[in-house]
């Protein structure tokens, strides 16, 4: 039983880490672009990015299932490559990634907004193009806030339930995450085990969010 518990925890953490690693390359630059300037279609992009945050997770899960299921457009494409996505660990990663994405972008965006625009302009006069500015000025100055955003996204990915349930199912040994296991144990009437997992969930999430908040505090202190 302890073994099973440890396996589920390790699995959930691994999937969350992979999910966050996947959304970083897209999310951080996007957060910077959204933090800078106004351009046509910006409001639309902002809305699309924020959708998974406000939609019911099961709704997001349903949409993902429609896309990635065997008969869905993306599902069929992956099948042709011999890759199964729905109801495998890959679906767990996708669901967690989608649900954590808006949190990552919104939090990182705030950090970028707190970077002095004038420093970025100055860097342009010193020969850096827009992406050079991103790498040499914006990213380093916003680094604490970005790390905080990453931790927050990790905590969100860790706790993801509704979307994961829909698109990955709760298959023992394959897609069973911490939150799905808690649900399953409750269904079986194994309350004490469920509470154990619940406690572990709270513990991990608490640490991740605490670290995130402390980093944010340090980032704010540096500005003043």
């Amino acid at each position, binding site marked *: 039983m302890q073994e099973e518990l440890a396996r589920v925890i390790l699995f959930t953490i691994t999937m969350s880490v992979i999910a966050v690693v996947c959304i970083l390359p897209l999310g951080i630059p996007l957060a910077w672009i959204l933090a800078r300037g106004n351009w046509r279609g910006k409001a639309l992009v902002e809305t699309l990015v924020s959708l998974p945050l406000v939609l019911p997770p099961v709704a997001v899960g349903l949409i993902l299932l429609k896309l990635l299921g065997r*008969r869905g457009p993306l599902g069929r494409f992956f099948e042709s490559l011999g890759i199964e996505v729905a*109801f495998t660990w890959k679906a767990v990663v996708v669901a967690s990634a989608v649900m954590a994405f808006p949190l990552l972008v919104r939090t990182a965006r705030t950090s970028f907004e707190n970077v002095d625009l004038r420093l970025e302009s100055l860097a342009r006069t010193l020969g850096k193009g827009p992406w050079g500015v991103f790498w040499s000025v914006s990213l380093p100055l916003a680094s604490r806030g970005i790390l905080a955003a990453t931790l927050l996204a990790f905590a969100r990915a860790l706790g993801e339930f509704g979307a994961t349930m829909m698109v990955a*199912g709760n*298959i023992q040994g394959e897609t069973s995450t911490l939150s799905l296991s808690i649900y399953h144990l409750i*269904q*079986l009437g194994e309350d004490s085990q469920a509470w154990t997992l619940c406690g572990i969930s709270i513990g991990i999430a608490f640490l991740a969010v605490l670290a995130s908040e402390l980093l944010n505090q340090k980032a704010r202190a540096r500005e003043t």
Partner: protein
Amino acid sequence: MEKRFKSHKKWILLCAVWFLAMHTVRPAEIRVSAAASLKNALNEVAEVYQGRSGHRLILNFDSSGTLARQIQEGAPVDVFVSADAAKMDFLSEKNLILRSTRRDILGNQLAIVVAGDCAAVIQTPADLAASGIRKVAVGQPQAVPAGIYARAYLEGLGLWDRVSKKILPCENVRSVLAAVEAGHADAGIVYVTDALISKKVRTAVVVGVEQGPRIVYPAAVTKASGCRREAEDFVGFLQGADARRIFRKFGFAVLSD
């Protein structure tokens, strides 16, 4: 003195009428938690009963495991109809049902279904273990009766070890059906009554009554029920001729006491 007596009499009369009205004419609300596989049949039975008795039925369909759990947690339920005896026994042990009202009302059979457009061929249960079948949808084999029955059946045939590696566990038997309909699984194990309802799946194998596990649907009134008499009346109706006709129409086996 006489005037006062007359006004008192008026109030007493009104109270009496009100009291009687409350206890004879008032229609009851009977809350029924029933196994997911009973959905279509019980809806029809409920319509007939409501028209007949004037009572209102509030039906909640889900996996019997989930429903039993809800009752255990204190959900306001009057009648529980389970898809297996185990869930009813569970509640009985915890003293949550009125044992004297428990009746076995229906039977069922398992069926193996495949999606309507599925290329794979399943003629015997052993075909489920074939490599061409990538995923088999069943109810959660630990908590959902349909899944428990499916597991027992496959274990009996010595197929469970191979098939369990590719199962897609579902929350209740109707979601098993949906999974096969949507193509998320190549095949699924449901009740014969579910296969009959769906137009999008083909029944590949019907598990005969002798070959499969014994499937029994018990019904009982809960201890916490606020309308015991009406609830018992409904359970009795489920065993009546009209209800039986409807159940048979949907493919259920009717058990006589």
